[in-house]
């Protein structure tokens, strides 16, 4: 027995001695599926002295978490491009990027410039693009045809068979469908409120048509795949994943333009592993890693051949969904000015609380 215990002790001591070698930890704050195990393993194999820890979140929770800690606790975050500027100005939770440490050459130039334009404060850039995708409509073509836009979610033909997520995207989409340009109204709070009132009324009237509000990608997938819902608001990535299981279910960019978001890389103000963060950014933009990443997320990487690097089933889904005119018609989310979310929040509460059947 004795030698065995000694052996165990020696082993423990060894492993403890080995631990300090992997001194650095990279704490990622990102979206579900944006840090697949395979990618993390490859990264840790290449940089054995870095440990990757992942926390899954969404735009709102990312900001809330970083706001609560004053920007500490994470080393790299991935908010969408329109959510960086106001959050930074109001809560000072990020720090400027050192562009010399990022291989910006591999990124799609117009996305890089677009994100930089959105996230430049006092001449400093806070974000670079990672992946992009859109929000639009998902249709089960076996059950519904002729769906062209956001307004069809309220079409009585699909009574009890439509769904949406009760968040700001649907307010904007319905705004476009009703002939407004919400992004142009962002800076005119009164005009924006007027639009919100119209949209709120429309969505309250719409409640009798929809089945339920979905709350997450899994929820939505279950509703669509079971056939309980035939037309729904969706992220395109969710629709692309579902297409692989049921090719009747396709993504339809609304005629007013699919709403496009770019998820970024942004470094929290209290980040303690900037070098590791830059290494991660450069690592996941490599073509072979982009392939793995896109297979997991269903979103398109911000590299010039992003669509080609999608796995076959998803590329097929994208090709069914978008033609060039749809891509030209994309509406990229504009920077949200401070205070807008509060107005939208009120509208959403009113819609949720209104009784319809």
């Amino acid at each position, binding site marked *: 027995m004795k030698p065995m215990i000694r052996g165990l002790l020696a082993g423990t001591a060894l492993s403890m001695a080995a631990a300090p070698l992997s001194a650095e930890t990279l704490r990622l704050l990102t979206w579900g599926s944006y840090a697949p195990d395979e990618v993390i393993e490859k990264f840790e194999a290449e940089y054995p002295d870095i440990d990757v820890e992942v926390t899954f979140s969404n735009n709102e929770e990312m900001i809330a978490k970083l706001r609560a800690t004053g920007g500490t606790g994470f080393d790299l975050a991935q908010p969408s491009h329109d959510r960086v500027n106001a959050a930074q100005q109001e809560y000072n939770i990020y720090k400027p990027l050192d562009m010399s440490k990022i291989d910006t050459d591999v990124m799609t130039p117009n996305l890089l410039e677009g994100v930089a334009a959105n996230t430049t404060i006092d001449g400093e850039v806070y974000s670079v693009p990672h992946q992009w995708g859109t929000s639009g409509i998902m249709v089960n073509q076996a059950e519904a045809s002729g769906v062209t836009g956001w307004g069809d979610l309220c079409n009585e033909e699909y009574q009890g068979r439509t769904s949406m997520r009760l968040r700001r995207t649907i307010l904007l989409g319905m705004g476009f469908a009703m002939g407004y340009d919400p992004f142009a109204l962002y800076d005119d709070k009164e005009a924006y409120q007027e639009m919100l009132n119209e949209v709120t009324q429309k969505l309250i009237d719409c409640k009798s048509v929809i*089945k339920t509000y979905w709350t997450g990608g899994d929820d939505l997938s279950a509703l669509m795949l*079971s056939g*309980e819902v035939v037309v729904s608001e969706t992220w395109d990535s969710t629709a692309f994943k579902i297409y692989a299981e049921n090719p009747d279910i396709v993504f339809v960019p609304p005629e007013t333009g699919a709403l496009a978001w770019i998820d970024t890389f942004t470094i929290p103000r209290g980040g303690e592993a900037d070098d590791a963060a830059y290494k991660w950014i450069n690592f996941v933009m490599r073509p072979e890693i982009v392939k793995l990443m896109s297979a997991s997320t269903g979103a398109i990487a911000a590299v010039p051949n992003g669509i080609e690097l999608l796995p076959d089933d998803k590329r097929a889904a994208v090709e069914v969904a978008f033609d060039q005119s749809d891509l030209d018609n994309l509406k990229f989310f504009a920077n949200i000015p401070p205070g807008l979310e*509060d107005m939208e929040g009120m509208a959403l*509460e009113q819609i*949720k*609380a209104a009784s319809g059947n």
Partner: protein
Amino acid sequence: MSRDAGRLSLILLFAPFALWIGLLIILPQIGIGYISLREKVGINEYEFGFKNYADFAQAAVYRNTLFRTAWISILVTMLALVLGFPISYYIAKIARERSRAALFLMCLIPLWVSDLVRAYGWIVLLRETGVVSTALVSMGVINEPIEMLYNDVTVIIGLVYTVILFMIVPLVSTMQGMDDSLLEAGFNLGGSRLTVFRRIVVPYAMPGIVAGCIIVFMITAGSYLTPVLLGGKNSSWFTEQIYNQFITRYNWEAGATFGVLLLLFTSLVVWLGLRLTGQSLATTVAKDT
């Protein structure tokens, strides 16, 4: 010397509890109360005042949701009491000594699974293409699949299921102490079943009833997952609005105000409940036996 030692051990024993209450309950409440009195006038500019409370009073949406939450919580509490009382009585008085532990354990088992899993369990059962609907269709009871999810009834079922245990445990432990001879005496003196139940069982179980009702009501009013997951397009719940204020609207001030209001309102409901039923904490929950 020994008195000092005794005092020291008392302090040491008391310290974890005091730290818990102080750091995790009282301090955060003070923080929430402080934030709720902060008025936002611009970016990073704040003033003190009661504007957040005034805003709440003016917005019918929030007031109605608070009342709705309270009303459903009261309903859930009553249902849990009605359903839980016979079960507790059976476990405490009728079941044999040996099966008692097993029965009690069976009530406890659902607690071993997280809230989230239990809610998804109900979703799998009740959705339109779910187990119950499919079974009914295949047995020919109904022709078309029916949706049993996404309405208030489902929310109430889910909540009662989640909280009934917190009713049963205090009820069983109070009724276990009841001497059977009390019941026999009641019957011997010519009392009917109803009289014995009303005059002997209920008064004896009252501390358990009050404790169970308070716990269940508070848990229900403060629950988040069950109403959000099982509720449909019309099921607003007050805790959901608190979440929305903090997370999606970045409005910590309003969220904190709602938090304080929920605490005050539920406390008020409990106080009213005690008043209306002629009970007080001193004579029930904190009663010397």
